[in-house]
């Protein structure tokens, strides 16, 4: 497996590989998001208790799940960059932070818009909501640290340590609804055993979940490729890629001729 993974530690190989993946991700994201969200908004049945407000579920739950899984992926990348000094995984961690922060914000805002009609309040300081808010601050802190230093390696180290310390927040978010009394309901989808949802609600959920997954992949790819370019801007392959090859080669030839 290590031999198979090895070439992807090369920024040039990874840059071209992600470039080839992106059109596929875009197509899949467009397909799954349009199917999933139309299904969720128009065809899925209303909840027998919550009525049509249940349609917020199809945004809120995928966003909340991704806010945590992106953080976990970022922590794995930060760990690899701290332990093995992999420059690319540092670039990946810094590419993921703003995406995760956006999804955390979406989870919080859609949660508030769902909480107002169902609980009668936009916000309460209970365990689930507060720990999710802390997750947002962790993301913002990591982003700030990545931008705080001129030296990208130093910035990556500082942000990586904060990321790893913040991992303790993930199980707190996950189990907050079981450990503490809260207004927030327990897990619906990821329950072990039978998911407590009807198929009519589960399928649109799965479609929009996959749609968001591919959308996240595209955005992370774009940001990752930006990071690769800016961190390797002095390398010959970046220069050849970005500058029209005829102009640079003729410049080189005249130099040689002289």
């Amino acid at each position: 497996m290590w031999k198979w993974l090895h070439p992807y530690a090369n920024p040039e190989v990874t840059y071209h590989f992600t470039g080839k993946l992106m059109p596929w991700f875009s197509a899949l994201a467009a397909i799954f998001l349009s199917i999933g969200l139309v299904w969720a908004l128009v065809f899925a049945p209303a909840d027998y208790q919550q009525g049509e407000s249940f349609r917020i579920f199809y945004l809120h739950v995928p966003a909340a799940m991704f806010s945590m899984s992106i953080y976990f992926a970022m922590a794995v990348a930060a760990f690899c960059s701290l332990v093995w000094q992999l420059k690319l995984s540092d670039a990946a961690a810094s590419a993921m932070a703003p995406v995760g922060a956006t999804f955390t914000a979406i989870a919080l805002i859609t949660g508030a818009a769902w909480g107002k009609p169902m609980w009668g309040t936009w916000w309460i300081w209970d365990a689930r909501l507060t720990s999710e808010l802390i997750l947002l601050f962790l993301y913002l802190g990591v982003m700030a640290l990545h931008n705080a230093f001129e030296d990208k390696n130093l910035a990556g180290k500082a942000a990586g340590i904060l990321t790893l310390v913040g991992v303790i927040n993930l199980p707190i978010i996950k189990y907050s609804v079981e450990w503490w009394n809260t207004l927030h309901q327990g897990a619906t989808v990821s329950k072990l055993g039978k998911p407590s949802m009807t198929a009519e609600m589960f399928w649109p959920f799965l479609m929009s979940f996959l749609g968001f997954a591919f959308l996240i992949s595209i955005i992370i790819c774009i940001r990752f490729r930006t990071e690769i370019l800016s961190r390797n801007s002095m390398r010959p392959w970046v220069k050849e890629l970005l500058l029209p090859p005829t102009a640079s080669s003729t410049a080189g030839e005249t130099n040689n001729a002289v």
Partner: protein
Amino acid sequence: MQFDSFSAFLAMGGYGFYVWLSYGVTALLLVILLINSKSQNKAVIKHIIARQKRENKLRQAAALQKQQQAQLSPADVITTANNDSNEVLS
């Protein structure tokens, strides 16, 4: 189809404001993130190209000067070359 009419679809059984607020905010934040990611990508590419062009220009200018100096007498070349290298450094 869960709704009888388009206005019923917009009303969302009385929860229209909250449902459309959620979908609107989500779409808005995702569009902002996507545009921001793309514009940063373009800015970095533009920056690298501009710097590379500047370097190429400097290199060409230096080559041109060398060419001109080669046509001068050897003694002149040494003094002007020293001056030029100082200028480039500063």
